């Protein structure tokens, strides 16, 4: 790093121009950023049952289903029914829509004496009261419609909209919303279903980015302004970190990586974390300027001396983020990679671009804060001897708090229910709740059965499997070709209830399937391929909790083995598997990411300070902070989700910085032989920037609490608390331990 100050001193103009140019180039790629809220893309495809969804897309015309929920006290009135009819027509005209299913266009096959009636469920809307009543009674009496398309109490109905596999989801949902708006229903109408929810998440993510970045900037301006009381101290670190954000997000756009719900927190994180490097460099610059050193000397000390602990802080922070690369969740790994890049860029800009800017500015010492030492520094200087005096009490209290927190921490469980992204009571959460409670759930398992589907032996296995599946908790409605064949058999046999059984011969099956082609082949085509070699069983699930999903998946897999055996190839898939894979990915790798982060920072600190003891001392405050954070989560019942899964490793990576600054300064003060004075001087010198840094980072993260998405909110508030706590913990625990470790030592190895 010795060459660095010389470089900055000699080429400030070139450095500034180069940074400006690169910012323009990478800024251009910001337009390539694409927000992606797709839960199925967060995990490797092989692990999430996504390949089954692709088969459903290819063979059955699309796996994504948006749902229009219509709530009305008077559903069975000509006004509402004709409104539904009009809306279905409009929805069917949307090019990205493959199939629309609602009460009024549902094809019904039923027996009426010797006749087989193949018609719409509602051929024409009754105009008389008795006609409407009889329709209501007929629909609510039929389990094929009750609880599927109409709520048990007849006060809500669904329109199911299957999107084409190649549909632009955002555009499709917009067009559906427009059609719904134009329908002017007398009741309440809302959108549900995975594609709608994912689109809402995407919109909220965009809104978050537009809202949170300016808020973080404002927060940083306040914190930096209050701490430095100079415009340079406020604007320059902010400018540096804004440039770092442009570079990093520009690289995300350049490499065409999606901005996932995980990635959406990256700009605020970089702003909060990256500003620290500038704060330390600037603080030293100002200190040395106040000492009356010439420019060359100021650059040497600010970049050369402070650059090293800042570098160490950067490396440890990057290690904390990099620890997330062990996560199985693809979205988290991509985030980790770009976070590491962003942190490295922030550091490089802080040690090159910031001093270069300062070099280009006129020397105005009078404009710098003249408080020497600062009030906070004097206060912290007085705190150090007290910590040394009561170090045993400090350490024992911390240990007891750790134990209590860890007990609560064991209660923390992962949760990847994406409905929980939304605030309780919000429109998407409410619509999802209605579908879950009144219509059997919006999550759907997909089970694909391969073989000769017309073979009664396979069909009876499918029938048994469906029966067994009904007993799995939270499984509600099951659809397959089996029930269609059974009801056709009944329809063909004078509607006799005892005829609602599977046909016994292959020819019967084949002939019924041919007959069914007259009943609206779209429905048939969604259950079996035209060559009858692949059948689809769908099972609705009315619970979003990943723990419940896990249990159900295990049971369904066991039933598949039991009912089909090895001779029939059966595949299980669907969005529930993607959600559970995410849950498993977090559950199995979160602890490893924290262990990896802790190990990495211990090794890095030990190597850089040449002492394993110092490495272990440095990690103590973050370990303490982690225990407290998880304890708080356990106490408050906060679950670990795809964003909070990164809390531990990020807290380690950022929190270790405070210890590093303390230890680095402690080593720098080695000429002072009295341990009390040495620690006092250390705390007095780096305590204020540590607190400013912790406050800036903490408040920066706290801004995420203003997110529209609950998981981002929780992450922001938790990590903000962790950062503030981490700063104080470092100032209390590191001096207490160092006082114990070095009480007989006169100096430290240099």
């Amino acid at each position, binding site marked *: 790093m010795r060459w660095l100050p010389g470089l900055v001193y000699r080429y400030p103009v070139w450095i500034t121009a180069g940074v400006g140019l690169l910012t323009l180039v990478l800024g251009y790629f910001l337009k390539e950023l694409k927000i992606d809220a797709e839960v199925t893309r967060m995990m490797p495809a092989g692990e999430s049952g996504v390949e089954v969804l692709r088969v459903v897309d290819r*063979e059955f015309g699309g796996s994504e289903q948006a749902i229009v929920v219509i709530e009305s006290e008077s559903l069975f009135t000509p006004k509402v029914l004709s409104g539904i009819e009009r809306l279905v027509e409009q929805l069917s*005209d949307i090019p990205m829509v493959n199939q629309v299913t609602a009460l009024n266009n549902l094809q019904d096959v039923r027996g009426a004496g010797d006749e087989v*009636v*193949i018609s719409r469920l509602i051929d024409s809307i009754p105009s008389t009261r008795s006609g409407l009543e009889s329709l209501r009674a007929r629909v609510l009496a039929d389990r094929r419609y009750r609880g599927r398309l109409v709520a048990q109490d007849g006060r809500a109905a669904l329109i199911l909209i299957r999107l084409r596999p190649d549909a632009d989801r955002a555009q499709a949902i917009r067009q559906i919303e427009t059609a719904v708006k134009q329908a002017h229903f007398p009741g309440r109408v809302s959108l549900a279903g995975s594609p709608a929810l994912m689109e809402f998440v995407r919109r909220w993510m965009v809104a978050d980015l537009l809202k949170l970045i300016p808020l973080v900037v404002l927060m940083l301006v306040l914190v930096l302004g209050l701490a430095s009381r100079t415009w340079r101290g406020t604007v320059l670190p902010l400018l540096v970190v804004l440039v770092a954000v442009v570079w990093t997000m520009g690289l995300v756009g350049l490499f065409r990586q999606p901005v996932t719900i995980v990635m959406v927190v990256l700009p605020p994180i970089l702003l909060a974390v990256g500003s620290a490097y500038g704060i330390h460099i600037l603080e030293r610059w100002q200190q040395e300027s106040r000492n009356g050193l010439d420019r060359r000397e100021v650059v040497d000390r600010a970049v050369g001396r402070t650059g090293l602990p800042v570098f160490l802080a950067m490396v440890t922070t990057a290690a904390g983020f990099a620890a997330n690369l062990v996560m199985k969740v693809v979205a988290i790994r991509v985030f980790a990679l770009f976070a590491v890049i962003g942190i490295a860029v922030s550091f490089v800009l802080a040690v090159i671009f910031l001093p270069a800017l300062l070099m280009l500015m006129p020397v105005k010492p009078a404009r710098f804060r003249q408080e020497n030492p600062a009030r906070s520094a004097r206060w912290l200087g007085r705190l150090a001897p007290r910590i040394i005096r009561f170090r045993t009490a400090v350490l024992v209290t911390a240990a007891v708090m750790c134990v209590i927190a860890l007990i609560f921490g064991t209660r923390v469980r992962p949760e990847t229910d994406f409905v929980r992204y939304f605030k309780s009571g919000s429109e998407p959460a409410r619509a999802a709740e209605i579908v879950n409670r009144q219509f059997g759930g919006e999550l759907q398992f997909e089970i694909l059965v391969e073989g000769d589907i*017309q073979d009664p032996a396979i069909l009876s296995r499918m029938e048994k499997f469906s029966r067994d599946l009904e007993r799995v908790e939270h499984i509600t409605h099951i659809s397959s070709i089996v029930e269609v064949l059974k009801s056709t058999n009944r329809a063909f046999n004078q509607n006799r209830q005892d005829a609602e059984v599977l046909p016994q011969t*292959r*020819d*019967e099956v084949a002939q019924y399937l041919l007959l069914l082609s007259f*009943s609206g082949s779209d429905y048939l085509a969604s259950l079996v391929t035209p*060559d009858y070699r692949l059948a689809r069983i769908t099972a609705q699930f009315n619970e979003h909790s990943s723990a419940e999903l896990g249990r159900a998946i295990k049971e369904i897999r066991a039933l598949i083995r039991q009912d089909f055996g090895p001779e029939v190839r059966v595949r299980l898939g669907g969005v529930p598997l993607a959600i559970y894979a995410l849950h498993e990915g977090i559950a199995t790798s979160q602890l490893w990411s924290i262990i990896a982060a802790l190990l990495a920072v211990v090794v890095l600190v030990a190597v850089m300070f040449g002492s394993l003891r110092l490495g272990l001392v440095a990690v103590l405050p973050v370990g303490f902070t982690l225990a407290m954070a998880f304890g708080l989560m356990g106490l408050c019942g906060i679950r670990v989700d795809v964003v909070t899964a990164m809390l531990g490793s990020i807290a380690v990576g950022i929190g270790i910085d405070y210890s590093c600054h303390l230890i680095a300064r402690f080593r720098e003060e080695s000429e002072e032989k009295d341990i009390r004075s040495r620690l006092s001087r250390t705390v007095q010198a780096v305590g204020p920037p540590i607190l400013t840094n912790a406050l800036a980072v903490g408040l920066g993260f706290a801004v995420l609490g203003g997110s529209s998405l609950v998981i981002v909110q929780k992450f922001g508030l938790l990590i903000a608390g962790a950062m503030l706590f981490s700063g104080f913990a470092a100032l209390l625990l590191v001096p207490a331990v160092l006082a114990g470790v070095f009480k007989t030592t006169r100096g430290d190895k240099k």
Partner: protein
Amino acid sequence: MKRMQAITSVLLCLSAVVSAMSGDEVLDRMREATTASDRRIEAVMRITDKNGRVQERVLRMVMKGDNKLLVRFLEPADLRGVSFMSTSPENMWVYLPAQGRVRRISGSAAEASFGGSDFSYKEMANISFGSSRVQGVPVETELNGVRAYQLLIDDGGTQSRLWVEKERYLPLQVEQLDRDGGVRKRIIFAEFQQEKGVWMPWLIRLENRAKGSVTELRLRSAELNIGIRDSYFSEENMKKGG
């Protein structure tokens, strides 16, 4: 419109070219060129779905007038003997040999796909444009190098474009339009042969734009004007297979 699609074309007719004809005149000429009082056809129906999978069915169709139709499946083996019959758009019956029973089918079955193909039963059954109305005047144009009239047809609110060969008044192509004017289905008539003075396409290809599937109906044999009686269209004949 739907009516014209299918087999419709099997039966249309031809005559001399007259310039400045009205749309209805062109349509009448086409009917003359391709209409027979009755016909017995054996054809291979080849359905190719959007994923390229092919299913073949062999059918025997006996038709009389505009509405009477008896279709019997000859292949594949598991469908052999299945028969559908209609004597009017409202009266349809099905016979499933595995059940040994004939059942009347009511409702909207005639609108739906016929046997998994892209044709509807109605399209299979109807043999002329019936109540179709021509909108506007015919446009003289070319289709694949053949001089033709292009007509805009309205069939109960559904619109389609029909190309009629100018020289022999044979239907060349029909495009069913959706509400936005986009093509929903395209039906191409080809390989015309004349039998007892009646022109008949031996290949009808239906491209379903919405589903991405294609159905081809290729004739194996065709007999026209053979004096089929009305009594032929009976439940007994359905069971016997005509």
